[in-house]
C-alpha cells in the first residue's frame, strides 16, 4: 500500500508532465518555457526532504525523457532532476524558517537545470546545444520559474501538508 505522499507525487508529476508539453510550451513567451515539472519536483523536495526529492526528480525526469515529443537520449532529464530534487530537498529545514529560501531554491534550480542539461548535451556533441541558445534561455528560464513558483509552490505545499500533516509541517 503506497503512502499518501507517494500517491500525491505520482498524480502531480503525471499532471505536470502532460501540461508541460500541451500548455506551457504553447504559451507565446520569448526564450525558455516555464518549467512546471521542475517546480513540482522542487515543491515535493522542499516538503519531504532530499531522499524523497531525489526519487521524485528521477521519476519525473525519466518521464520527461520518454513522453512524446521527447527526442533526446533517455536519462538526461532524469540525471538533471535527480540532482535538482536532492539539492532542493537539502533546503527542507531552512525553508521552514524563511519564506525567502524557497524563492532562492527555485531560481537556482531553474538555472541549474538549463546549465546541467546543456552541459550533458555538450559532452555528447549535441549539435542543438549552442552557447547562444544557453545565453538566451538562462535568464528567461529563471524569471519564468520564479514567477510561476508563486502559484505552484503554495499549492503543492498545501496539498502535501494536508496529506501528511505531521510530516510536512511547512509554513
Amino acid at each position, binding site marked *: 500500500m503506497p503512502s499518501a505522499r507517494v500517491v500525491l507525487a505520482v498524480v502531480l508529476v503525471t499532471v505536470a508532465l502532460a501540461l508541460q508539453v500541451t500548455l506551457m510550451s504553447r504559451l507565446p513567451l520569448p526564450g525558455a518555457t516555464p518549467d512546471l515539472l521542475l517546480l513540482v519536483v522542487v515543491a515535493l523536495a522542499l516538503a519531504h526532504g532530499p531522499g524523497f526529492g531525489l526519487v521524485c526528480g528521477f521519476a519525473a525526469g525519466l518521464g520527461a525523457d520518454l513522453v512524446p515529443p521527447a*527526442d533526446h537520449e533517455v536519462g538526461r532529464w532524469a540525471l538533471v532532476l535527480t540532482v535538482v530534487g536532492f539539492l532542493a530537498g537539502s533546503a527542507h529545514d531552512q525553508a521552514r524558517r524563511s519564506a525567502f529560501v524557497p524563492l532562492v531554491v527555485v531560481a537556482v534550480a531553474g538555472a541549474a537545470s538549463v546549465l546541467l542539461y546543456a552541459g550533458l548535451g555538450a559532452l555528447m556533441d549535441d549539435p542543438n546545444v*549552442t552557447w547562444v541558445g544557453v545565453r538566451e534561455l538562462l535568464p528567461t528560464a529563471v524569471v519564468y520559474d520564479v514567477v510561476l513558483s508563486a502559484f505552484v509552490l503554495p499549492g503543492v505545499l498545501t496539498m502535501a501538508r494536508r496529506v501528511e500533516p505531521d510530516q510536512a509541517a511547512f509554513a
Partner: protein
Amino acid sequence: MNRDTRRTRVLLALLLVTSISLITIDYRGGDNSPLDGVRSLAATVFGPVERVAAAIARPVGDAVDSVGSLGDGVDEAARLKARNQELTRRLRTSELDRNRARELDELLHLAGAGRYTVVPARVIAIGSAQTFSWTVTLDAGSRDGIRPDMTVLNGDGLVGRVKTVGPSTSTVLLAVDPESSVGVRLEASMEVGFTTGQGIRDGGDLDLRLLDGQSTVDRGDRLVTFGSQGDRPYVPGVPVGEVVSVNGTPGSQTRSAVVSPYVDFTSLDLVGVVVDPPRTDPRDAVLPPRPAATPVPTVTVTVTPSPKAGG
C-alpha cells in the same frame, strides 16, 4: 538521522549511475537504441493522456489573451462589462474556428497542387525550449496510416518529417531543428543543395548549402524539396522558403545562404502528413504564383533591311 543521510547519499549515487548508464546506452545505440522499445511504450501509454490534456489545455491557451479583469458583478457597469467580455470571447472563438477552416483550406490546396495524399492532424504537444530540440507531437499515429519518415507539411510549405510513431500519436522533427537536413532545389535554376535548421526558436531561419560552388543564388530565390530516394523522408516539390541573404563568394567549395522558411514554426496547429507521394515530381507547381511584377516599358526597335545595305 545519520543513517538516514547515508541512505539518501547511497540512493543519490545509485540513481545518478542509473541515469548515466541510460544516457550511455541510448547514445551508443543511435538510431536503433535498445531503449526505443521503452520509448514507443511511453508513446502508447502517454499519447492518449496528451490528447486529453491538449483538448483541455487548448481552450485555456486560446483564452489566455482574451482574459481581462472580471467585473465584481455588483453594479450594473461591471455586469455589462462582463457581458461585453463574454461576447468578445465568443467572437474570438468563432474567429478561431474560421482560422482553423482557413488553415485546412490552404492545406488541401497545397496537397492538391502537388498531388500529395495527406492525412490531416493537429499539433497536441510541443517540446520545451530547454530541451534544445524542435519536435512536436501530432494527434495521429500508426492507426491513421502514419509511418516513420513521412513528410509533414501545412498550407504554407514544409514542416518536417515524422520521427517516431505511436498507435494514436506521432512525433515530428521540425525542419528548423539543427539535426534536420533537407535536400532542396532552387526554383527554375535546378541547383541542388540542402538546408539545416538554425534551431533558434524565434529567429527560425534555415542554412542553405549548395553543392555546386559555381552556382548562382540570389536574394528572393525560392526553394522546394528535391525529393529523397523512394520519397522518404521528403517528397519532391514541397515549398521550403525563400533566400534572404547569401554568404561567401562564387567559386568557393560550396555556396551558403540563409533561408527564411514559409512555415511559421512558432504557431503550428493544423498539418498534413503525406501518406502517399505524388506519382510524378510536381516541380515548381506547388509554389504560389509570383506576385505580378510591375511592367517595365520595353522599347522595340525594328530595323527593316534596306536594299542599299543588302547590296
